[in-house]
């Protein structure tokens, strides 16, 4: 089983990821990993002159390096060594532009518990306004991440996730990308007819409607196929 993950961190995580790949191998997973160092000294071109994260550059660089890839998981450090932006915010800002909406995401931090307790204390003492505290918690709750983990638990959490079910959308996307030259001959959705898998994959990433329709159609086709002896394959 082949899997591909991306880790976004401000410091080099290659040791951790290499370790992870070896552990994954023991579980029968062939893990390809990438890291994207944002916020730290390792990628100075992604920073502004003031040392802050330049989101536009990050988007650009992300597309350039990872545009064609499908990840089963993106793990992101919560603290990116930048006072203005954390991992949650970064993913929110680049998520749509980089078609990460369907990709499961994981947030980790070396100081998760500490940060939450600090925020709570600051809210209790009135240093943090109620509204800001609410927003702080809300961002965490509403970001739809697959997990929040302590940095110490990162490897095993990623591994556990890789062993779990995969999202249908990702399987489809991966399949489309793996055979870019093939062409959609007939589908329920006439807009996709005649398009190559590559073109469909692009639409699939960009347009929620296409994504949902194709997923539904494929499921319907499969159910038809599975329930009819002479299932007529139409896709």
């Amino acid at each position, binding site marked *: 089983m082949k899997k591909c993950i991306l880790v976004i961190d*401000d*410091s*080099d995580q290659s*040791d*951790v990821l*290499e*370790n992870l790949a*070896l552990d994954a191998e023991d579980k029968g997973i062939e893990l390809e990993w990438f890291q994207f160092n944002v*916020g*730290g*000294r*390792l990628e*100075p071109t992604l*920073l502004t*002159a*003031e*040392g802050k994260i330049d989101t536009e550059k990050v988007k650009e660089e992300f597309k350039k390096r990872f545009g064609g890839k499908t990840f089963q998981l993106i793990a992101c450090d919560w603290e990116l*060594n930048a006072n203005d932006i954390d991992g949650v915010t970064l993913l929110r800002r680049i998520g749509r532009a980089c078609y990460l909406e369907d990709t499961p995401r994981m947030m980790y931090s*070396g*100081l998760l518990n*500490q940060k*939450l*307790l600090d925020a*709570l204390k600051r*809210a209790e003492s009135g240093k943090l306004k*109620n509204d800001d*505290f*609410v*927003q702080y*918690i*809300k961002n965490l*709750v509403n970001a739809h991440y697959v997990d929040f983990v302590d*940095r*110490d638990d990162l490897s095993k959490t990623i591994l556990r996730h890789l062993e779990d079910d995969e999202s249908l959308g990702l399987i489809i996307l991966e399949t489309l990308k793996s055979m870019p030259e093939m062409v959609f001959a007939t589908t329920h959705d006439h807009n996709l007819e005649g398009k190559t898998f590559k073109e469909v994959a692009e639409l699939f990433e960009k347009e929620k409607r296409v994504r949902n329709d194709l997923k539904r159609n494929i499921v319907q086709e499969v159910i038809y196929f599975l329930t009819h002896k002479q299932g007529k394959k139409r896709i």
Partner: protein
Amino acid sequence: MNNKVHFKTNILLKNIIGKDLITDDNVAVLELVKNSYDAGSKVVEIRFGNVVQNNDFEVDMPDSQSSRIVICDQGCGMDYDGLVNKWLNIAYSEKKENNRLNGRRQAGNKGVGRFSCDRLGKTLTILTKMAGHPCLRLTIDWRMFENENAQNEEIQDVTFDVQEVTDQEARHIIGCPSFEHGTVLDIGLLRERWTPEKIIRLRRDLEKFIDPNSVFVTDSFQIELLAEEYKGYDQEQAYETQCVNGPVRNKIFEQLDFRTTSISSYIDRDGKFIITNLQDRGREVFELKEKNIYPHLRNVKMMVYYLNPYSKRYFRQQTGFSSSDFGSIFLFINGFRIPPYGDQGDDWLGIEKRKSLGFRRYLSTREVVGRVEINDEKDDFMIISSRTGVVNNNAFIELSKEGAPYGFFYKGFRRLERFVVEGIAWDKTLEKVSEDGIGEEKYLIDDFSRDKRILSVIRKIIDVDESNIDYLHINEEFVREILDAQMAQTTANLEGVVNELANLASNADPEAVEAFKEKLQGDAEEMNKLLTVVGRLAPESTEINKLSRLLTEVEKTKQEAEDKEHLLEYEREARLKAEQEKEDLEKRLALEKEKNTYLLTSSRSMSEDAKGMVHNIKIIANSLHAKISLLYKKVRKDRITKDEQLKSLSQMLFQIDKALKISKLITRANFKADSEDKMVDVVAYISQYLDIYSEIMEDANIEIVKNIKGITFVRKVSVLDFAVIFDNLISNAQKANATKVLVDASKTDDKLTLMVSDDGDGLDERFVGMEESIFELGVTSTDGSGIGLNTVRSVLNDMGGNIAYIGSGKIMKGATFKIELS
């Protein structure tokens, strides 16, 4: 044998066309009243004499003590020819030849009305006088035609005497001061006993016989009942309508106009158009002119009043009897009623049959009164000789058909029905209505809602193709009242909501806003409905623009309310979530506290510096953990080369050096170990670090000279990395016996160059000619205990920099290294 034969008219024919044909006393009286009307009389008196006490059983022919009904008119009367050749001529009717006589449309036309007298009494004395002619008297004893054994006796075999009487004699008989012209029917030896109740029933029938609208408005005709014997009875009655004596009036419909909902529909004289008018509580709702689709109907009018419980109560108050006793829909042809149509229990239009089919929302005869008036100039309607109904011909079918295509009556009746059922919601009156007449009319829905509902269903009520409509006029005042009321209500609501919204607290319940929103939504919907309806029905109404503007205002406020609601909802949700989070955190904290009070306490008491140090140590430890773990796995799996092992180990050393560096730097006031990478002025930092170098490095015995003034180079770097790099370079210098290290900084094109040279022995001879190899992995220029220049280069490369060996004796006599950062 005579070849020519003919019918013989047996004397018993009189019974057939007389008392057997006219089966109802009241119908008989009406027939006679009709004759008076046809004769042009303006008044007809019906006098009852000796109906309580009489000598009927003692005498053969009536005298002054015998029971009698005297019907006395002031019509044109008859001369001898009229009396003998027309009146006595059975079935002869001038009216058949000429239906307008004496300035009036003739009500009767069968020529048998005169036999009604037979129905009423055993004898008849006619006194008749035409102006300028002598008064004639004729007495008929009907019993003379009743000999059933007289098989061969023909009707004309019975003869009577016609006598002339003087005017004075006539006045004496009639009991009137003058008798210029007219006819008096003195019916004697009455066949029935006329009790007060029976006479009152006659009165009611007569009231109904008289079409209150079409005939007598312009052409007065008064019927008066007189019964001396019942005057005492009358004095005991509470209502005029319960009295025997007095004129017959029919004002019920006029009064109902102000109390009820009614529809009138009229087919014009030419039969081209139907004009329909719907009134609600004395106010016109609409008038509709549409094409007439009934070829056999012209000059026909129908009028139906819907009686709600209040109207019924009013009816009872006014008349003394219930509306259902009164009857339902009466038919008038040429001004006179056709019985029994409309009588209680009669269902000539099939209203009850239709209702009994189970349609709850149909009106029944108990809920309506009304009439159909026909001015039948062309004898399209044929009245049955017995005076009980009309022949079921095409005209009658077009009038009365129940079922598609509906007849004229139902066209109007169903509109009223729809109006009542859908417009004014008939079931919305209070169920219990007191019969005592005390108390206001109370409805479950207010007048405004009622009017709006009416307006909204007008189209549905009318239910006719656009192409058939000539014009439709909706009462402008009615429309304006509704729009004004709507605007007043909405404006009040709007002001209230705007105020409430402005004063709403930030933590208010979103449901509170929901209520405002619903109120505005309701108003907006109502206004939209009204605009649609009014725009279609009364597009010229000036109120439309005002209403539209108000609607925009309402929509705007509604949007504001919606935004506010969303905001409050969002805030509430956030509050709840935060509360939940807080609760969870508190629980966890409490749990942790129980589990490990000591750790928690020390965590709380840690300084910011300590926290930063812990963080850094954690990063380093994690890094070391990963590296060692990886090394372990790779070695175990035999997947690592010697070079890789060395690289890994030197990286570990570097990390350990960093950890040691933290322990040394942490005491410095200007060192903040809160994060690894920081935006710093690299030159200033190095300068400061070199200043304290001898203090923190216990065995340092070396002079460090800086030449770096006036240069600023701000980058995000790991300050610890720099410290360790300089430690390494200085340590190497010391190992080469240097006593002095010179650091020279320069900056060109945004690139920082640091030249580090010493006065030591320079590079070991082994490296001469292959100086670059000192940066190779595993190579050591000294005793091999340090992290190695390979790691130094690798760290600098990671931060976008580089290090190169320049040579020995270049600046000072020892080795010189050039560090570049961009």
